[in-house]
């Protein structure tokens, strides 16, 4: 008697697809719905792990858009501290789907809300990207001027983007109760002041994230009706959780919800796809361990492995194979890590 499992490919079975996967390079791990070519104009956004994707794509000769490219006469390292060259816009880390949705709404409408300016030292920062000006700006007006510029430049970039790669990082965020606005960073951690009466903790549900992904897609396609969206989930664990849970189950919950919401969105829309960077780093059959001694930052070899799969699936190549790491295995990888600007890591300073 014939049954559906008889005709399934090797990749559908754990033994042949996973256990024996190494022999085949885990063929079929990612079958892109749409292909990225050197002519594709790619935009990136998301959590810190998204910075790797942008860097690797640039290395593969892909046109990764940059709405606010660093002035070429200015030092690259300094400019990275000021949020240049990390993503396709100078929006800093975008950890949640809600944050992404609200940014895109602002970009689409050109909305600059003066309520979201935080004091920092003697100056002020944009509460919605509080780390892109490490020294703050001199006045509220200057913050608003830079934000208006940022939104318009981002809009110009989105109008020409073919593919938008969004790396989902967290389900947890802090929300302004009056407006529903969520922040990249909890008020009071790097700037601003925490007020329990006006700031609330949110741990977004699968349904909320899925709704946000729908909204993200809809807004992006207002900029370019043919825009395709590629979702990834960051394998990087939470630096801290405010959920009340232990950080390990809180991380598992967060990543599971993000992964499920991404998966469902991809089933619903042909122009949305998912790339399994989370699985490549966290699945026990994929080798590793891919995390550094802090068990949070993905080692360069792990990043290289992720991007090797990504590029190969799109018929591209640029990176050396994962077994030839981009830096010596016993070398000081902290220098590489320092290249990533991870706002959430700032929370680590509050650990007792």
């Amino acid at each position: 008697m014939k049954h559906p499992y008889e005709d399934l490919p090797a990749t559908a079975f754990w033994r042949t697809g996973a256990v024996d996967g190494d022999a085949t390079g885990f063929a079929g791990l990612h079958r892109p719905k749409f292909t990225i070519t050197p002519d594709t104009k790619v935009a990136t956004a998301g959590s810190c792990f998204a910075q790797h994707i942008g860097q690797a794509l640039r290395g593969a000769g892909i046109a990764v858009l940059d709405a606010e490219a660093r002035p070429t006469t200015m030092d690259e390292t300094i400019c990275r501290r000021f949020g240049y060259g990390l993503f396709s816009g100078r929006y800093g880390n975008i950890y949640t789907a809600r944050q992404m949705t609200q940014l895109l709404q602002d970009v689409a409408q050109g909305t600059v809300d003066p309520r979201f300016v935080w004091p920092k030292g003697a100056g002020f920062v944009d509460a919605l990207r509080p780390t892109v000006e490490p020294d703050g700006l001199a006045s509220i007006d200057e913050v608003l001027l830079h934000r208006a510029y940022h939104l318009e430049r981002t809009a110009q970039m989105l109008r020409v983007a073919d593919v938008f790669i969004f790396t989902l990082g967290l389900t947890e965020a802090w929300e302004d109760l009056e407006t529903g606005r969520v922040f990249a960073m909890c008020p009071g951690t790097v700037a601003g002041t925490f007020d329990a009466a006006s700031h609330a903790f949110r741990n977004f549900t699968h349904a909320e994230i899925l709704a946000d992904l729908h909204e993200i897609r809809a807004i992006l396609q207002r900029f370019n009706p043919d825009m395709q969206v590629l979702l990834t989930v960051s394998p990087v664990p939470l630096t801290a959780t405010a959920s009340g849970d232990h950080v390990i189950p809180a991380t598992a919950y967060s990543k599971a919800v993000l992964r499920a919401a991404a998966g469902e969105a991809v089933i619903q829309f042909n122009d949305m796809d998912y790339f399994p960077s989370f699985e490549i780093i966290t699945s026990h059959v994929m080798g590793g361990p891919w995390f550094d001694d802090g068990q949070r930052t993905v080692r360069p070899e792990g990043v290289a492995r992720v991007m090797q799969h990504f590029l190969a699936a799109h018929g591209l190549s640029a990176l050396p194979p994962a077994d030839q790491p981009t830096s010596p295995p016993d070398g000081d990888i902290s220098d590489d890590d320092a290249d990533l600007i991870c706002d959430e890591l700032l929370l680590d300073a509050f650990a007792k």
Partner: protein
Amino acid sequence: MTQRVVIFGNSHIAALKYALRGTPDAWPDMALTLVGAHREHLIGVAIIDGILRPVSDDAKRNFNNLNGCKQVDLNQFDAVAISGCEVTFNHASVLYKNARWPELPSIVKMQNLPSMRERLVSVSLFDTCLRDALAKSIGVQFAHKIKAAQPDLPVFVLGQPRACQKALDGGNALAVGHQRIVDKGDTSVVSARFDDIATQLLADMGITFLAQPENTRTDDIFTSSRFTRDAMRLSSEDNLKQPQDDVLHANAAYGAVVLSQLGAALVR
């Protein structure tokens, strides 16, 4: 009381040298010793127990050829000054090339900033990049090295003169860069920014920056032609003029103004 001052410098020290030669009695309160060195030779020195010596063979040769000495005993001086050595407004001009910030008159007037070809950056980023560029200059590195070795010795940095206005005729990168600032009407703000940042950077190291005297400038970012005409070269050969098309060096008249500025600063 006469103060013993040693002034180190690259090609820009020639303006001081010929000023001193022309009117050796003009600064009776200062006993001046001038030590010139080309290119990066001033950084390639070691200072041990107050004795400053060039390290590499090239630097030794250059020191000896230009100054007839093998070392300088800093213990013999009441103050040190450094002239030129890349502490120049040109760094600001380069950064201005494709970056603008909100305090600039051209930006205040502009209606549609996102359409601007140049990037809108924060003044903080501009300042940080300018500080970085100046910190890497030979003059600041050398001044810092002296201050680290001789913390009690007052150290002054005499900024490199701004380019001559005829630089605009040159068509080179310097001309294009300065012309941009002129065309946009941003000369006074960019010039003041440069002086402020150089002053702050050096003050943080315990060093005094003496900005180019106002009366030697024209249009904020240039040196008046009367202070650049017939500028001389730093050379072991005497009385060697800068070439006709030189736009970077100042003359003995400029050197005299700067020496007076230094004298006044020493009194303070």
